[in-house]
């Protein structure tokens, strides 16, 4: 009888699922640092994704300098980091988020998951402060996202070098371009953002940016979950061709404009990959370190200070394959790193505020454009 009763209770509970429990739990209260109960427990929990710069030597040096004990929580990508922040809002699970870029930052700020950090930062380049200059996040690396192509195939004979984005919808490029999904990848999201600006400023007033994506979808564009899959598995111009997961069916890929520089630097000044500098088709991406609401603010601020010190931040090009955000820093000249890294003449110009206001809508439009193709 007891079991039967339990069963009936279970069925009734399941049938009345209307979210009542969750509704009661989620009250969305925002509490300022001064009123929040947080203690400096000597630990620093970092939420991040595969940011290569956070290597052992760098973390151990921070622990030695400050005495904080570091724990690294590695997620899949920048999107997962923001998901984690929103999912655990006010729960004091982690202290600092590293790797949120300027396509996600405003969402984090708007949702009150970040705190103003205490780090004193004086040497940040103006370029790195362009997308955001407030107290909630410190820009620790930057780069430009754009199309790269394999110059051994796209040589003007077998394939024509694209002169504009519409060229990529031609038959010769059918199934030959890999782009990380804007829904799951920050480079993909950044490139989609660039296309909104590109098609707003092009000569053609009859087509929208979504029309281009529809045409790309019809032209069998390869959309991948993340950057790694697009670059390593599909792209013929990168190091992926020497690896086990390689498929090699794309001669163009969305990556960083300095990816060819990284290729050259890694392979003794040799690369067949070239970045494509089309006006407004590239995006200036800045990645941030930010203190998380409810976390150990002192430890987070100490880490931001450390990350932005010239000793650490100047190593971004070699440790993290991104540009430093400090004044006067550039990529190294060794093995063609700087030579093969193109800085776009005219990247897309979309403010962080505009991104935050429109991103959800853009993603919905992008989704419709791809589904309707």
């Amino acid at each position, binding site marked *: 009888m007891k079991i039967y009763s339990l069963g009936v209770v279970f069925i009734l509970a399941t049938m009345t699922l209307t979210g009542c429990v*969750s509704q009661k739990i989620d009250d969305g209260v925002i509490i300022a640092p001064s009123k929040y109960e947080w203690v400096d427990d000597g630990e620093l929990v970092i939420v991040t994704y595969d940011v290569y710069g956070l290597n052992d030597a760098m973390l151990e040096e921070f622990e030695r300098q400050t005495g904080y004990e570091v724990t690294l929580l590695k997620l899949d990508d920048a999107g997962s980091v923001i998901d984690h922040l929103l999912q655990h809002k006010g729960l004091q699970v982690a202290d600092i988020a590293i790797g949120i870029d300027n396509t996600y930052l405003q969402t984090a700020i708007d949702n009150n998951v970040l705190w103003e950090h205490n780090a004193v930062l004086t040497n940040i380049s103006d370029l790195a402060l362009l997308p955001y200059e407030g107290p909630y996040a410190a820009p620790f690396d930057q780069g430009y996202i754009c199309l790269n192509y394999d110059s051994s195939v796209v040589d003007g004979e077998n394939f024509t070098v694209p002169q504009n984005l519409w060229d990529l919808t031609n038959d010769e490029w059918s199934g030959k371009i890999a782009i990380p999904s804007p829904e799951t990848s920050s480079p993909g999201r950044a490139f989609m953002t660039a296309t909104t600006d590109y098609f707003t400023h092009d000569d053609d007033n009859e087509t929208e940016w979504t029309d281009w994506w529809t045409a790309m979808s019809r032209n069998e564009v390869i959309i991948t979950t993340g950057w790694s899959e697009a670059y390593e598995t599909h792209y013929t111009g990168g190091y992926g061709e020497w690896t086990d*997961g390689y498929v090699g069916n794309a001669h163009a890929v969305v990556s960083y404009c300095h990816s060819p520089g990284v290729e050259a630097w890694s392979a003794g000044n040799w690369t067949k990959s070239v970045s494509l500098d089309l006006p407004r088709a590239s995006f200036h991406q800045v990645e941030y370190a930010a203190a998380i609401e409810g976390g150990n603010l002192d430890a987070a601020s100490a880490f931001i200070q450390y990350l932005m010190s010239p000793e650490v931040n100047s190593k971004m090009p070699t440790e993290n394959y991104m540009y430093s955000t400090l004044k006067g820093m550039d990529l190294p000249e060794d093995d063609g790193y700087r030579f093969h890294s193109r800085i776009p003449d005219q990247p897309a110009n979309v403010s962080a505020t505009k991104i935050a206001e429109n991103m959800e809508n853009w993603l919905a439009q992008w989704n419709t454009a791809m589904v309707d193709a």
Partner: protein
Amino acid sequence: MKFRLISSCAVIAYTLLVVVPLWLAIDRLIWVAGFNPLDWINSLDGNYISQGVVAFTFLQALLSTVVTLAIGLPIAWQLGRYKWPLHSLIKATLTMPFVMPSIVAAMGFLHLIGPSGLNIRIDDTTWFATLIIAHAWFNLALVIRFCEPVLSTLDPKLEEQMRLLPAGHSKIGRFRNLWAPLLAPSVAAAACMTFVFSFTSFALVRWITLGDNTLESVMANIGSSAGIPNYMLARNEIILGASLIQFTILIASLWLMSWLQHRRQNLLPQASEITVKRVNHRGWMIVFPAVIFALSPLIAVFWASFRIRHTDSSGTSYSWETSGWEFAFAGSGSMSSAWDALWNSLGYAMITLCIALPLGWALAQTILDIEKERPKTARFLDVLTMIPFAASSVMIGLGVMLGMIRVNAEFFYSFWPTPVIAHVMITTPFVVRIMLPALRSLNPIYDECAQTLGIPAWRRFMLIRLPLLRGSILVAVIFTLAMSLGEFGASWVVTRNSDWTTLPVMIDSLRSIPYNNTYTAPAACAVSSVLMGITLLLFTWAEKFRPARDGGMF
């Protein structure tokens, strides 16, 4: 009275551990997305991220089932009808893939088709076939385990009598009138379970396909943004839609399976194996390639763990080194060492065992005890214990993740055994499935006689029940350990918010390191080899205690 208490406790514990997290997760998702099942289903094809996923999931599951049967039936026939030297070893080899963690299989197949293997992955048309074959490899044991007992124990007189009848003159006639009706329920049961496992496959789909997703993998990919108010609302609908379809299909399959199992029992063993089997030299043409097929992904994993790639301006070369193992076991600030993962996995497996075995046993005993007096209640409880089968491991992981965020995230994230909750949810139903037939087969007369002699309950338990159930208990112990050690989907969702990595999650993490790191593949294969070794050890042990003619999955 004592027993009623144990039964009640088991049902309450199971409800708390298994049903509540799932309920909390669904409740949360519904709160964010709203209650409109039709919208949930429509969202699957209305979003690019999940477009075509339903069709792909069904297609690959159906094809996997067909190919598994096509490969498995001739092997089952050979094993069942003929005498083989080292029969037990051959059978163990062919059925071992089923207990092998799917992520290990994924690593093996990636290397078999990769540049250092057959080098056919470069052609993007081959990966789909690879996925289907990998599923066939994984589920081969189901066909053998379900069909071989029927084939090996059918009284030969039946076939001889059939030969004399007009309907049994030809091979086709005997097949149609004797073998087909006899084998049909077993083949259908094997097909049903193969379909279920292929339908919910995650690790193989994640690693072998190129961008294509099943319902399971799409839920895993977008799970991190589930349950957040006013954020990525469509994703909640997708997860609910995917769960609803999966739940419906899997519940239907499990009901069908339950019905088929009942029919199978009436057709099982009718003669000793010794009286039936003959020698068949030509059968080696099937058995030998089958053994190679079963072993090749595992050999590939071990072999690839020592093969290190060196790329420089002069090209690519390979050398044989142990540095992949050293890389995996050294660990770093940003990556746990394989030792940590190993201890975590072993610890979680042991705790899982300590909870799932008594819980599953008590539930099985409860079902058995009430099925005569209250068959409907027993049936309800039986289905309730199968809910985790129908929910899939990723959904279970999401349930645990969302559940602990809602209940007390600070506590659960600092509580090392947290991932055990997901493991218990997944393994308990298997314990019930193993223990229930064993308990049913116990002859109550022994216990009654002992009771008449005045032997107290605990001594009866120790002297009669325990020795009689020893084989099944050990099989349950070993499978619980093996399943917990190899569990990937739920752990992948749960442990990504913590630094308690397990062996399967570590394999995935290592393999996800960008491939310009020389050790990405060898280190992943080194950890896979460790997991493979432990699983093989457990499997070999389990084979010693498996009831001889059970004919089930395990």
